[in-house]
C-alpha cells in the first residue's frame, strides 16, 4: 500500500515542480534559479508540517516520501549551482547553495512548529 501512495504522491509532485519552475523562471530576468529554490523551500515547509503533525504511516508515504520527495530536487539544484559557477557567476552560486540550505531548513522548522501549534 505504501508503495502505491509514494507513487501517487510523486506523480503529483514531479509535474508540480516542473510547472512551478516554468512559471517562476518565465517571470523574472535574473540568472538565479528561483524556480528550483521555490519548490525546494515549499517542499521543506510541507514536509515539516507533515512530520510535525505526526500523521499516519500511509499519509507520510503519500505526502512526505512521495509528494515532497518528488517536489524537491537535489540533482537539479546541484546542476544549476554548477552552471552558475561555470558561467562565472560565483556570488550567485554561493548564494544559491547557502540560501537553499538556510531557507529550506528554516521552512522545514517553520512547518513543523506550525503543525505542532495546530495540534496543541
Amino acid at each position: 500500500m505504501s508503495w502505491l501512495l509514494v507513487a501517487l504522491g510523486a506523480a503529483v509532485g514531479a509535474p508540480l515542480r516542473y510547472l512551478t519552475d516554468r512559471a517562476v523562471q518565465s517571470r523574472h530576468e535574473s540568472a538565479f534559479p528561483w524556480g528550483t529554490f521555490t519548490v525546494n523551500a515549499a517542499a521543506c515547509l510541507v514536509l515539516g508540517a507533515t512530520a510535525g503533525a505526526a500523521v499516519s504511516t500511509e499519509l507520510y508515504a503519500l505526502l512526505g516520501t512521495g509528494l515532497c520527495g518528488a517536489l524537491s530536487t537535489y540533482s537539479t539544484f546541484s546542476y544549476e549551482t554548477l552552471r552558475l559557477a561555470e558561467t562565472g557567476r560565483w556570488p550567485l552560486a554561493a548564494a544559491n547553495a547557502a540560501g537553499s540550505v538556510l531557507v529550506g531548513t528554516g521552512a522545514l522548522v517553520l512547518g513543523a512548529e506550525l503543525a505542532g501549534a495546530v495540534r496543541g
Partner: protein
Amino acid sequence: MNPAPPGAGGEPVPVDPDVDLHVPAQRAETAGARLLLVLAAVAAGGVIGALARYAAVRAWPGDPASAPLVTLGINVLGSFLIGVLMVPVAEGHGRWSPHPLLRPFAGTGVLGGFTTFSAYALDARDLLARGEGAAAFGYVAGTLAGCLGAVWAAVALTRWALTGRPGAGR
C-alpha cells in the same frame, strides 16, 4: 534517433525547464498538447525515481542515531547522473540529437524524483533536535560538497568522453 544535428534547420533545443524562458519562442515549445505529453513524461519519471528512493530507504533503514547516509548517497548519485545526462542534452556534442522527452523524463522526472531536498532538511533538523550539532553540520556540508563535487566530476568526465578534451564545451 533524430538524424538532424542539433540546431540545424531551426530544430528547437530539447524540452527543458532550464531553457531560457525569457525567450517567448522557447517558452512556446511546450504549449498546448505538447505540455501534456511533457507532464506525463515528468510524472512517469518522477514515480520511478521516487520508488527507487523509497526502495533504497527501506533496504537500508539505517541506525537512527547515525547520519542519514542513504539520503546522502541518493543525492550524490543523482547529482552525478544529472551531470552525465545534461552534457549531451544541453550542449549537443557530436551529431547525437537527444529525444525531446529525454530531459523531462530522465532529468526532471527520474532524477528529480529520486533526489530530495526536503528529506535532507528534515534529516538535518532531526540531528539538531537530538543535540548532534556537529553531525548536523557535517551532514549538511558533506552532502553539499559531495553533490557539487559529483555533478562537477560527471560534467567534466562526460565532456571528456564526448570530445576527447578535458573540460571542453561551455
